[in-house]
């Protein structure tokens, strides 16, 4: 699953730590999601989308291999 976390963070100028705090997970988890190493739960994905004020599909996208 591809994601646009890094771009969206840059747009809002917020750090990984800040996004982690606002979504109630660790900074390491945000880092892992950005690098495609961890796929978040639906709840966490929705929380992230809420922070960026965008629909889920604008941030997360399925890949052919999914």
């Amino acid at each position, binding site marked *: 699953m591809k994601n646009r976390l890094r771009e969206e963070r840059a747009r809002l100028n917020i750090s990984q730590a800040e996004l982690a705090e606002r979504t*109630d*997970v660790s900074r*390491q*988890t945000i*880092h*892992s999601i950005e690098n495609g190493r*961890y796929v*978040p739960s639906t*709840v966490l994905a929705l929380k992230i989308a809420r922070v960026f004020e965008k629909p889920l599909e604008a941030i997360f996208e399925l890949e052919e291999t999914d």
Partner: protein
Amino acid sequence: MKTLRLLPTVWKPVGFVLALAGAVLGTLTVFSNFEIPGFGFNLRKEDEFLVSKFENFTQELALTLLLIGLLIMAFSRVKNEDERVQLIRLEAFQWSYLVHFSILLVANWLLYGGNFFYAMLFNLFTPLIVFLLRFHYILYRSNKEIADESLETT
């Protein structure tokens, strides 16, 4: 996301101390027949086949300390416990069961008599021990990779 019910992080060192005490006492009991003097009583009216009327509870104490200690260690939160850590927990549990039953399978064919008994005694603890080793190793490796990548990008 709702996380698993776990003990607070401060319990982890408590579990470690209990498990260590249980492991030392258990080793002394099994391999040197050590018994805490006076720690027992007459459980039966007379000696029976393979069991004496007096029962010393050193071995029971060792097993209790070790099991409770390991359980506390396995089921207490780590710092920054969240859904990613819980996935690591789940994978470590999967590993621990694979190792546990692999040992059982191998010991079943290769070990007999007393050796099989000792292997099974040790194997009682492999689910918890392998879980703890695997969980903390993956957590350490994952956090180290993330820290290294963060340094590269800054």
